[in-house]
C-alpha cells in the first residue's frame, strides 16, 4: 500500500475542516472494509484517510415511533441486528445489514459507508431506497438531504463532494400496516457480493388488503442501485394478489440494465430480478399484514 | 521367456504386435532385446542410460523401483506405463 496519513477527528466540524483542507487528496473511512482493500489494490490513492468512527454523533442509532430512525453513518452493521427496534420495525434493512460479508465485516462496516462506497451491489442500499431513507449530507455550505435512490451516480461514485460528509440516515417510522424485506441472490449462502438484490417496503390497508404505498429498490442490475418507480407505482391501490405482484416483477425486470460479469450473466440477472421481486414482495406483504399485531 | 506388453502407441514399432517375448535377466537386457527385435524401441524408453522419468514400469504387477536393474523372471509380464504423480 502507498504511504498515507491517518486522522481521527472526534466532531463533525473537525472532520469537515480536514476534508476541506485536503480536498481531493482525502478519503473518509468508517469500517474500512471496502476502502482498505481499494487502497491495497491501488484503486483509490488518497494521501489522507479521515476516520469518522470516533465521532460520537455518527455512532448513534436512535429510534422512536414519533421521529422514526436516525442511523449514524458510522454505526457498525452488526448493531442494527442487535437492536430489537430495528428487527421489529425495519426487518428488511436489518436483514440487508446482516448480509454484509461475515460477522467480522459487520462488526466494522457501516450502512452509511456501504452507501458512500457507491457500489451498485451494496446490500443495504436497495433496502434504504425501499424505506425512502434520506441521507443528511453536511458540508461547508451547510446541510442537504439526499434521497437514497439519488445518492449514487455511477459505480464507486456518489453525490458527495470531496468536502462533504454523510452524517446520518433518516427513515420515517413505519405506519401501522407496513413493513419491509430484502432478499439477494448469491451463488453461495454467505460471503458473496449480491448478484441481484431486491429491497421492498409496503403499506397496506387492512380493511380491504389493498396497497396504500409500495417502494422497490434493486441492486446489482445497473450502474447504480435503482428505485423501480413503475414497479412500485403499479401496486398502489391494488389488491396484492399474484397478478399484481407479477406485474410489478415484470416492470422491475424492465427497469433493470444488468451486465455480464464473473458473478452472473445479464440474462441470468434479469430473470432473477423477477424471481426475487416476487419473493421479496411476498415476504414484505405478509409482514405488513401481521404488523397490525404491533 | 518374459513377455513385454507393448503400449498402444509403440505398436507401430512392432507392426501392431501387442505381446512380445523377450530374453533378459533385468529390464536393461529386456530393452536391449526389444531394440534388437524392433529397432527404435530404446530411444522411446531410455534417456542417457536410464529409464525416462516419464515412464514407469510394472513387472508382475509391481511398480519397478530399480530402473534398468529391476529383475525380470522368465515368467515375467512387463508393462510400460506413463509415470503419474499425486496431490
Amino acid at each position: 500500500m502507498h504511504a498515507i496519513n491517518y486522522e481521527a477527528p472526534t466532531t463533525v466540524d473537525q472532520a469537515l475542516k480536514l476534508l476541506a483542507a485536503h480536498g481531493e487528496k482525502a478519503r473518509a473511512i468508517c469500517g474500512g472494509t471496502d476502502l482498505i482493500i481499494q487502497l491495497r489494490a491501488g484503486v483509490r490513492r488518497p494521501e489522507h484517510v479521515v476516520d469518522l468512527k470516533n465521532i460520537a454523533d455518527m455512532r448513534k442509532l436512535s429510534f422512536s415511533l414519533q421521529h422514526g430512525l436516525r442511523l449514524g453513518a458510522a454505526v457498525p452493521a452488526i448493531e442494527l441486528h442487535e437492536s430489537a427496534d430495528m428487527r421489529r420495525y425495519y426487518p428488511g434493512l436489518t436483514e440487508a445489514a446482516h448480509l454484509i460479508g461475515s460477522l467480522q465485516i459487520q462488526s466494522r462496516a457501516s450502512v452509511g459507508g456501504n452507501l458512500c462506497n457507491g457500489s451498485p451491489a451494496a446490500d443495504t442500499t436497495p433496502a434504504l431506497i425501499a424505506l425512502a431513507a434520506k441521507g443528511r449530507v453536511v458540508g461547508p455550505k451547510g446541510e442537504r438531504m439526499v434521497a437514497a435512490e439519488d445518492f449514487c451516480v455511477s459505480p464507486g461514485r456518489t453525490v458527495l463532494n470531496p468536502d462533504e460528509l454523510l452524517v446520518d440516515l433518516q427513515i420515517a417510522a413505519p405506519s401501522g400496516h407496513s413493513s419491509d424485506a430484502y432478499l439477494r441472490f448469491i451463488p453461495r449462502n454467505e460471503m458473496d457480493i449480491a448478484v441481484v438484490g431486491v429491497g421492498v417496503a409496503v403499506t397496506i390497508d387492512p380493511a380491504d388488503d389493498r396497497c396504500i404505498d409500495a417502494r422497490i429498490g434493486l441492486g446489482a442490475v445497473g450502474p447504480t442501485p435503482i428505485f423501480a418507480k413503475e414497479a412500485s407505482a403499479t401496486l398502489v391501490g391494488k389488491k396484492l394478489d399474484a397478478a399484481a405482484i407479477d406485474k410489478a416483477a415484470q416492470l422491475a425486470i424492465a427497469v433493470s440494465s444488468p451486465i455480464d460479469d464473473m458473478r452472473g450473466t445479464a440474462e441470468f440477472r434479469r430473470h432473477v430480478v423477477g424471481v426475487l421481486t416476487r419473493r421479496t414482495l411476498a415476504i414484505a406483504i405478509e409482514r405488513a399484514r401481521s404488523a397490525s399485531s404491533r | 521367456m518374459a513377455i513385454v506388453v507393448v503400449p498402444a502407441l509403440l505398436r507401430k514399432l512392432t507392426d501392431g504386435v501387442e505381446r512380445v517375448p523377450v530374453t533378459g535377466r533385468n529390464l536393461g537386457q529386456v530393452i536391449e532385446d526389444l531394440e534388437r527385435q524392433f529397432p527404435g524401441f530404446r530411444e522411446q524408453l531410455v534417456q542417457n542410460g536410464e529409464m525416462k522419468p516419464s515412464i514407469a514400469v510394472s513387472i508382475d504387477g509391481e511398480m519397478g523401483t530399480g530402473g534398468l536393474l529391476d529383475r525380470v523372471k522368465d515368467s515375467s509380464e512387463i508393462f510400460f506405463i506413463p509415470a503419474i504423480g499425486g496431490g
Partner: protein
Amino acid sequence: MAASNGKNFKVIGTRPIRHDGVDKVTGRAKYGADYAFPDMLFGKMLRSPYAHARIKSINTDKAKALPGVMAVMTAADLPDLPDRVESAGEAPINVAHLTQNLMARDKVLYNGHALAAVCATSPHIAEEAVALIEVDYEILPPVMTVEEAMKPGATILLPNLRNKEEGDKQTNVASHLQFKRGDVAEGFKSADYVVEREFKTAMVHQGYIEPHNAVAMYNSDGKGTIWCSTQGTFAVRGLSAAVAGIPEQDIKVVPAEIGGGFGGKLTIYLEPIALVFSKMTGKPVKMVMSRADVLRATGPTSGSTIRCKMGCTKDGKLVAAQVWMAYEAGAYPGSPVGAGAMTIIAPYVIPNMIIDAYDVVVNRPKTAAYRAPGATNAAMASETIIDELAEMCGIDPADFRLQNAVAEGAAQTAGPPYKKIGFVETLEALKNTPHYKSKLEGPYRGRGVASGFWFNIGLQSSAVVNLHGDGTASLVIGSIDIGGTRAAQAMVAAEVLGIGALDVRPQVADTDTIGYTDVTGGSRTAVTTGVAVFQAAEDAVRQLKERAAKLWEKKPEEIAYTDGVLSTAADPSKKLTLKEIAKQFARTGGPITGRANVNVRGVGPSFATTCVDVEVDPDTGKVKILRATCVQDVGKALHPSYVEGQIQGGTAQGIGWALNEEYVYDDKGILRNFGLLDYRMPTCLDLPEIETVLVEVPAPGHPIGSRGVGEVPIVPPVAAVANAIARATGIRMEVAPMSPPRLLKALLKKRNGADSQAAAAGR
C-alpha cells in the same frame, strides 16, 4: 481393537490427540510466513498484466533508485537452463520450463507470469518499487482453450514444442497417450444402450488458505538455508538448486508447518528467488505471495474437454468405452491427463475400450497437482454416463456399478492386474448406510451416486527411532505433515514398540537431519513413510532383544518382545519392560537408534463411492446440498479421526468444484476472479454434515494393511452432484461447475422446450 486383517492392534485405530495439536490451537506453530530474522528484507514479484506477450525490454532503473530497495532481479540473474526432463519430487519436470515459470525469459505466457522481482527493506517499499519497473511488451494473441490450442494454425506458445507423430511440426500438443483393449467397434455393436456426451470442466484451484512463502538466508561460506511451507523439502532443495545455480549440497531446506497444499505445494515458486536475493544482498530475505498471486500464478489443476461414449447390454453389462480427452497443461507441458486416462474407467470391467489423451499448453498458469490429479475431471464424464446407462436399464446405480465392478485379478487400464482391492465392498457398504436406505422426497430433489479410483504412490522414505532412557521414543521423519500424519507415524512406532502413542515424540526434520524422503503427495505419507517407521521401530526392537540376550546370556533369537515387554521362553522368571531395560542402555552398549530407508513398490489403490442428495431451486438454478455420504476403502485406518477428516475435506472440495469454483478469464485472457470473494470455495453454510464410512480391505504387502486415503475422496463428488441434479430435474449437466446461471439456463431451456412441445401438441 480387532483389525480387519486379523492382526490385533493396540494403538493403531485409536484416536489420540495429535502431538502438534497444542501448538496449533495456541497459535505457536510456526508456518513459513511466521519466520523472521533481524535485518530481514522482503521480496515482491512483478507479474504480467497480459496473457501472452513477448518481453522486448525491462527497465529497472526507477525501481533500483527508490530508497529502501536493495536489489532487483530478472531472468538474466538466473542460469538459462536447457530443455531437460528430470525426476525431482514425485513427477518428472522440465527444468527449463520450471525456471521460466518462476521468471519469464523472453515471453510471458499467462496473466500473472512473473518476469522480475524486487527486494527491499519493507514489503510496502518492495511493492511500490515493483510498480516502477518499466516493461516493453509485444502483445500476442492468447490461446485459452484446448480447442483453440489444437486447431491447425493455432498460435504457438512454446517454439521448441514439436509434434513427432505428425511430421515434426510446431504444436501446442505436448503429448498424446493411448490405451486400448479388445475391439471397440464390435463392443458397441453388442450394446443395447449407448450414451455419448462431451463434458467440460473448469480450471480450479486447490485453495489452501496459506499463501506460498519462503525465507532464505545465504551465508558467506556459500551455504544457504530455506525455511518454507512445502510438501517436500528434498524437492525444494533439488529444484531450487537447479533454478538458482547453487549446488544442491550447499542448500538446507527446513520444513515450516504448512497451511494446506493438496498438491499445489509440491513444486517451487519463490524459494530460489529468495535465495538468490539473499546471495545478492547478504541478508535474510522473506517472500510471501498475495492471494491474487496465488490464484493467478501458482498451479491450479487443468480444465478439460472429455468426449466419452459407453455402451452396455440391457441387463446392465458394460461392453465398450471410447474416450477422447484433452487437458489444459497451462503454460508448460504437464497436465495430469495421463492419470485421467488411467482412472476414467478404472473401476469397471469393460472388455473393449480405447482412450486417447492429449496434454495441451494454453495461456493459463502452469498446472500443478491437485488431489488425485486428473481423476475428478475424468469421473465427471464416465460416472455421469454410467448413471445414465443405469437409469436406461432401470437398475439401481449402486447395483449397476456392483455388477461391473473390478476386483482382484481384473486388468487395470494400463494392463497390469489389480491385487486385492475394496471397490465392491464400498458399494455394498453404501447400500447399507442410513443415508442410502432413507427415502428422498419432495420436488426438485434428487440423489446421486458416483465412484472414484486413485492409484496412490509409494516412493522413498526414511525414518529414525531413538529410544530414550525413560522408555519413551522420539521419531524423526522427512515426510511433511499436512493433516495429522505425524500423529499417525507416531502411532505406528508406538504399536511396534508396545508403548503409548503419546510416548513417541514425532518430528519432521530438515534435509540435513534425515535421509532422503519423497514429497508428501500421492497419498503416500501415512502409508509409505509408515512402512519406514514400522521398519525403523522393528530395527529398534531387534536391538532391544540383543541387549536382553546380553543381560540374560541368551541368543537374540531366544528373546521375545510383546507389548513392550522382553521375555524368553528359556527362563520364564526373566522379564524386562522397555522402561526397565532403557535404564540399562548405558551398560549394555549405549543408546539405541532404529532406522529404516525404503523405496516402496506396490501400494494399495483406493476406491470411494459418494452419495449426495440435492435440492434445486427451479427459479434460480441454485443447488442446495442436503446430505452427503462418502464410503471409502482405507485398508486400515491408522488414526480414524484424521482419515474421516481427509474424506470430509476431499468431499467438500469436490462439492465446491461441482457447484461454484472456476477460473474466469475474459476474452483477453485476464483472470477476473483472483480473490476469495469471487473464487467461491464452500463456507460452512454451504455444506451439510459429511458422513463417512471407513471400509477396511487391507492392502497386500503393507505391514498394517493401510491404503492412501487423502486423494480419492475428491474424485466422485462432481459426478455425484451432477447425477443428483439429473435425478432432481431430468437434466444431464455436461459442464462443471454447475453454477446457478448454467443450471438455470438448462432449466429454462427444458421448460420452454416442454412448453413448445405442448403448444405443438395443440394442448
